[in-house]
């Protein structure tokens, strides 16, 4: 690195900064009203039912939790793999990860049927055979690690500096476990046709890198634009190709998963349902085209080299595609009926053998959006009070040898 990186708080005090916070605040308040409504009335005011038991709040929550793990990857590359250009990006990476995780966990928590009983759980009613119980430990541990990690990056004292690398390693390993744990929520569901595969764990790890990198890139570009700080192509191109490679990896794992399923006769029904049935549009256009092919094109097309609009669009599409990915997996997987009797036509008053339909209510959507808004609001506030961002990320600052 040519010169020592100087960090500073965001100095903006104008309508722009407070306007963003107020807008996010309004979304959070709307979400709070929705939570109150659902909690007071019960879940009958939602679109969820006994067939689609997890709905829109879970789509948001899983997306945010998975994205949190990926957002911390930027810091990992700097610490564990010693890539100097990533090191100035580490603070925002860790802070964003913690914020996304808190947002996601809150959505998950606020959707629970009986929040009063959560307190009992804190008093030790934990079943360690449950991946959910493990996830609670993994998630809360992750927040503690991120706070420590941030401290090692921000405190100039010798002790903090000496812990920078070890904590970076712990953070990386912990993230692996955490995202595997989240993927395994599905992987351990033995009877659901669309889940129950070990590949769900690595698939979620790869997907986490996509969403985390995409959100990080969007946040960095927006912030540097609004604060008038220099952001060079050297940093952006690193993020650009990281994003594209992980999109390709996710696509590859998804391909393997579907090809394996297509080989096994027992999975033909659910594959046909996702690939050609009611969810085919969401899968092909949402997950594959918007979430993978278009962003890869925008990044790897020679004529769009160093094009910032193309990168921002690619990152945004990857985020949108991520929601499609989770939606198709979560809702699509539940919409397809459980097979109690293979090779038979089945019917009952409880939707046996029937494709289940789901339409989320505004309450559910607002709860999810509020979780996302809370995460972003925390970052916007964090930038104001903590020195999270380098004053300049211009090419000559981050890499004097960079040639565009």
């Amino acid at each position, binding site marked *: 690195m040519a010169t020592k990186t100087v960090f500073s708080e965001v100095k903006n005090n104008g309508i722009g900064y407070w306007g963003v916070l107020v807008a996010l605040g309004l979304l959070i308040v709307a979400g709070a009203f929705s939570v109150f409504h659902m909690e007071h*009335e*019960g*879940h*009958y005011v939602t679109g*969820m*039912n*006994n*067939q689609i*038991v*997890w709905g829109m709040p879970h789509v948001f929550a899983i997306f945010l939790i998975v994205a949190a793990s990926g957002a911390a990857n930027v810091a990992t590359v700097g610490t564990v793999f010693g890539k100097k250009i990533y090191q100035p990006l580490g603070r925002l990476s860790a802070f964003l990860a913690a914020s996304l995780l808190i947002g996601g966990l809150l959505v998950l928590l606020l959707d*629970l*049927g*009986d*929040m009063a*009983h*959560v307190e*009992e*759980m804190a008093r030790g*009613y*934990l*079943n360690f*055979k*449950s*991946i*959910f*119980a493990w996830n*609670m430990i993994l998630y809360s541990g992750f927040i503690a690690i991120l706070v420590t990690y941030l401290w090692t990056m921000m405190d100039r004292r010798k002790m903090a500096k000496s812990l920078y690398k070890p904590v970076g390693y712990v953070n990386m390993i912990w993230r692996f476990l955490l995202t595997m744990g989240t993927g395994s*929520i599905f992987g*351990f*569901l*033995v*009877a*659901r046709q669309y889940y129950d595969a070990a590949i769900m764990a690595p698939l979620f790890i790869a997907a986490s890198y996509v969403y985390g990198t995409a959100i990080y890139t969007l946040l960095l570009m927006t912030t540097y634009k609004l604060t008038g700080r220099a952001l060079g192509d050297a940093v952006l191109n690193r993020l650009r190709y990281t994003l594209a490679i992980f999109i390709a990896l996710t696509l590859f794992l998804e391909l393997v998963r579907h090809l394996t399923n297509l080989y096994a006769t027992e999975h033909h029904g659910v594959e046909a349902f996702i690939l050609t049935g009611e969810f085919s549009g969401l899968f092909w256009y949402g997950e594959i085209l918007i979430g993978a092919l278009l962003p890869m094109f925008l990044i790897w097309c020679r004529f769009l080299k160093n094009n910032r609009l193309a990168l921002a669009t690619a990152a945004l599409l990857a985020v949108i595609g991520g929601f499609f990915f989770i939606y198709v997996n979560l809702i699509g997987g*539940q919409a397809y009926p*459980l097979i*109690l*009797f293979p*090779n*038979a*036509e*089945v*019917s*009952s*008053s*409880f*939707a*046996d053998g029937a494709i*289940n339909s789901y339409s989320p209510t505004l309450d559910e959507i607002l709860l999810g959006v509020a979780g996302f808004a809370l995460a972003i609001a925390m970052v916007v506030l964090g930038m104001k009070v903590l020195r999270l961002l380098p004053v300049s990320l211009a090419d000559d600052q981050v890499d004097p040898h960079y040639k565009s």
Partner: protein
Amino acid sequence: MSNIDSYRRKFISGLAGVAATATVAPGVFLRQAHAKAPDEPASDKVRWGILIDTNKLTDGGDACIAACKKEHGWGDEKHSNDAQKSQWIRKVTVTEKLTGHTVTLPVMCQHCETPPCVDVCPTGASMKRADGIVQVNKHICIGCRYCMMACPYKARSFVHEELQDQKQNTPRGKGTVESCNMCVTRVDAGKNPACVDAAPEALLFGDLKDPESKISKALKKYGGTQIRADLGLNTGVRYWGI
């Protein structure tokens, strides 16, 4: 009376006692095995199970469902839509695609030996008693619905609203998950589950661990089909005729 006479008398009265016990005891022991004191824990010496003969169920299980509803009070939730209302037991019609053979059977919690719902529950609210009955402890259920995702039989329902006028023996709660508990309070009192009493000609309830019980003898002689036996869950509910 000599010592020998006294010994003979004791011996004969002892014999009479043994004979009397042998005659009366089967009934006495049967009751003792069934009824359980309120503070007595469930015993792992028994495993309760139900055998359902679908050939003898002329109504496909309608009477069982009505009895279950009456016993536990589910299904009349006021605000919930049909997909949200609880169904602890349901009538499933199965027609084999190749042969066109149709069977109707009641499906409820299958009371697995290794229940996936218990494995995934983060709090331990979804639990299996020592006597094999699988149920939800509503006092610690947080309503995460992971057990509903995990159950291969779709046996569980979520309470989507506040409930009024509940049955005394079946406390239910908004925001918690519920399912067939094999009428645990009736079983503890030495009675049959409500569905079994509603169709005694087709349903048999008893201790699967007791080789002398009617259900064990019937299963030993003719076997009993499990739904999705491939999952290896060793269910406590078995069927004939499917």
